[in-house]
C-alpha cells in the first residue's frame, strides 16, 4: 500500500501492465524522454526502451490509426493524446475504425487499445486545454468511455481498460491529477468497466456525478448534511459507456429526488441521457423534477473566467435545495 496521487496511480497501472504483458506499448507526443506533459509516463522509456515507449511525431491521425494497426496485430497500445482538445484528428480514426473493426470483420478482429487523455477545466490553461467533451466518445457504439475520480479507481480502471478486448477511451481529470492522495494497493486491482459506485450514502437526495466534479458534489453533500440535515447519496459513475443505470436508478427510487452534476456542456450532455433513463424506468418513483448542474452552452472561457463556467458548490446547493423543495 502506498499513498498515491492520481498521476502516480495511473503511472503505477501502466508500469505494472507493461511488466505483466510485453504486448503493452505506450505511445504519444512527448511520452518518452519528457515523460509526458503531465509526467504520467515518466520513467517508462528508461525501463522499457524506445520500441515500447514511442515518442511520436506531432500527428494524431497517425498516432491513433497506427495504434489500431498495433491492436489488429494483437498488441495492446496505450496511446496518449496530449489534451482531449487535441484528439479530434484521432477522433476520426476512433469513430471510423477503432469502434467498428470488430463489427466490420464479423468478429475476426478486435481493437484492444486504450486512448487516454487529460480533460477538464481548472488548471489555468490556454484555449483547448480545458474542455470536457466526453459525450463525443460516449456517443459512439463500439467504444467504451471511462472517467476515474480518485487515485485508486484511476489505477484500477486503467488496468481494466488495458485488458479489455475493446477500445476504451479514458478521460483523466487533470484538475485532480495531484490534488489529493489515496491508499492504492501494490497488488493488482481491477474494476469492471461499466460499473458505478456509491461514493456517499444517504436517503434523502441522490446526486450523480463523475470525474473532477465528484469532489464538488461531495462537498455540497456534506454541506447539505450540516446546514439542512439532508442526507445525500452520491453516485460516482466511473463509466459513461457502458452506463451503469441500475445503481443510480435504485438510489433515485429510494430518494425520489435527483441532481446530476457535470462540467460538460448542458445541451446533449451526459445528464440528458441519465435523465432519460430515469424517466423511462423510474418515473413513478420521482417526487420532483430532476435538476442538472452543468457547464454552460458556451465555449469554455479563457482561464480568468473558467471557474464561472464550472459548476461550483453554490450552484449545486441551489439545485439540491430546489429539488428538495419542489
Amino acid at each position, binding site marked *: 500500500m502506498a499513498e498515491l496521487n492520481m498521476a502516480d496511480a495511473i503511472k503505477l497501472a501502466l508500469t505494472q501492465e507493461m511488466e505483466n504483458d510485453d504486448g503493452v506499448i505506450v505511445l504519444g507526443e512527448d511520452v518518452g524522454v519528457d515523460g509526458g506533459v503531465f509526467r504520467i509516463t515518466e520513467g517508462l522509456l528508461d525501463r522499457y526502451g524506445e520500441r515500447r515507449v514511442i515518442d511520436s511525431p506531432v500527428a494524431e491521425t*497517425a498516432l491513433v490509426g497506427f495504434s489500431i494497426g498495433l491492436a489488429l496485430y494483437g498488441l495492446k497500445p496505450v496511446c496518449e493524446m496530449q489534451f482531449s482538445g487535441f484528439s479530434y484528428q484521432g477522433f476520426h480514426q476512433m469513430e471510423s475504425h477503432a469502434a467498428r473493426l470488430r463489427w466490420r470483420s464479423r468478429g475476426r478482429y478486435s481493437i484492444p487499445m486504450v486512448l487516454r487523455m487529460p480533460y477538464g477545466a481548472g488548471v489555468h490553461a490556454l484555449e483547448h486545454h480545458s474542455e470536457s467533451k466526453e459525450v463525443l466518445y460516449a456517443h459512439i457504439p463500439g467504444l467504451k468511455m471511462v472517467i476515474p475520480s480518485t487515485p485508486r479507481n484511476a489505477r484500477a480502471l486503467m488496468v481494466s481498460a488495458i485488458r479489455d478486448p475493446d477500445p476504451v477511451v479514458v478521460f483523466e481529470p487533470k484538475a485532480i491529477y495531484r490534488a489529493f492522495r489515496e491508499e492504492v494497493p501494490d497488488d493488482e486491482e481491477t474494476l469492471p468497466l461499466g460499473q458505478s459506485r456509491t461514493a456517499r450514502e444517504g436517503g434523502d437526495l441522490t446526486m450523480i456525478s463523475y470525474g473532477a466534479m465528484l469532489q464538488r458534489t461531495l462537498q455540497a453533500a456534506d454541506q447539505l448534511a450540516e446546514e439542512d440535515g439532508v442526507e445525500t447519496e452520491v453516485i460516482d459513475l466511473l463509466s459513461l459507456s457502458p452506463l451503469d443505470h441500475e445503481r443510480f436508478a435504485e438510489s433515485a427510487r429510494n430518494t425520489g429526488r435527483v441532481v446530476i452534476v457535470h462540467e460538460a456542456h448542458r445541451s446533449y450532455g451526459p445528464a440528458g441521457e441519465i435523465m432519460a433513463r430515469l424517466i423511462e424506468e423510474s418515473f413513478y418513483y420521482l417526487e420532483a423534477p430532476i435538476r442538472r448542474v452543468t457547464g454552460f452552452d*458556451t465555449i469554455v472561457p479563457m482561464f480568468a473566467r473558467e471557474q464561472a463556467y464550472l459548476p461550483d458548490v453554490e450552484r449545486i446547493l441551489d439545485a439540491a435545495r430546489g429539488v428538495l423543495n419542489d
Partner: protein
Amino acid sequence: MPRKKVRLEHSVEYLSILDKNGKVDEKLIPKIDKDVLLQIHRTMLLSRHLDDRMLLLQRQGRIGTFAPAKGQEASQVGAMAALEMGDWFVPAFRETAAMLWRGIEPANLLLYNAGYNEGAEIPEDSHDLPIAIPVASQIPHAVGLAYAAGYRESDEIAITFFGDGATSEGDFHEALNFASVLKAPVIFLCQNNQWAISMPRGRQSESRTLAQKGLGYAIPSLQVDGNDVFAVYAAVQEAAERARAGDGPTMIECITYRMSVHTTADDPSKYRDEDEVKKWQELDPILRLQKYLKAKKQLSDKKIEALEKELEQQIDTAWEDTHKRIQELTDPLVMFDDVYAEPPASLQAQRQAYEQHLKCEG
C-alpha cells in the same frame, strides 16, 4: 513495358545574407528603407523584452501559460515587414514578434495571457487572425483566405506561420496540396526552431530539409537562415511577388531556434543540453542585426541602451493598463458573448439564470 527511371531534379536553395558578425552580402541584401529597418529592429527588441517580462510575470503567477518567441524574432518580423498590412496574417501560437509588427498592443497580449478573451480583440479593418493552438490547424485557413482574395480579384495574399512539428500533421500536407492544385496566393512560413516540445527536429522527420516537403507538392520551396532578418525578408518578398503575379504558393523553411522554454509549463532541462542553447545564442538574430546597424552607423550602443529603456517603459505602461483593465473586467457573464451572432433562446436563458444566481449569492 520497360522498367525505367522518372527523373526528378530536386534541390533546395538555402539563403543567407547577414552573417553572425553583422557582415552582409551586398548583392543579395534587399532594399529596405532606413526607417523601416530601424522599425524592424525596434519590434524585434520589443518582442524580446516583452517575452522576458511575461516570463517574469508568469513566474510570479500574474499571467498564465504562454509560448515565448525568443530567438525567432527575425523569422517573424522579417516576414511581416516584407508584406502589406492588407495581406492576411494567419499565426499559430508563438508569433508575438509578428503580432507586434502588425500593431497588436502589448497590453492586449498581456491581457490575453492573463486569461481574458478580450485580449484577443481584433480591430475591424485588420486582416489578422487570432492565435491558433491546435498544431497545423490554421494552415488550411490561409489557403482559403488566399483563394478567396483571388476570387474577389484583390491583390491581397496570405501568410501562415507554423513549426517544424506542424509539418508532421495531416492538416499541413492537405493544405499544401490544396494550395498547389488551386494555385492559391499563399506563403507557408515554417519556423523550424529545432524542437517540438521535447522532440528534436532530427526525430520529427527523416526528411533532410522540411522545405522539400513543399517540393513534393510542386510548390517552390527554399530554406533560409531564419535568424537573418534580411534573408527572411528577401525570401518572403520574392514569394509575395510570385503570389501576386498569380503564380501560386511558396514554402519557406526558416532555420531558427527556440531559445526559451516551449511554454512556461515546460522544463527543457529534461530533454535538451544547455550547450546547444549557448551555441545558438551566438547566432542571436537581434545581435546580428545590431552589429550590422552599428557598422552602418545607424545605431550605437548608447542608442540601443536608450531604446531598451524606452521599451521597458512601454511595457511598464502596458502592464499598468492591463492591470487596470483586469480590475474592470469582473463580469463573468461575458463568457456568454460571441458564441453566436444571435444567442439562441436557450443560451439567453442560461445566462439569465446564472445572472440571477450571482445576484442571490450577492
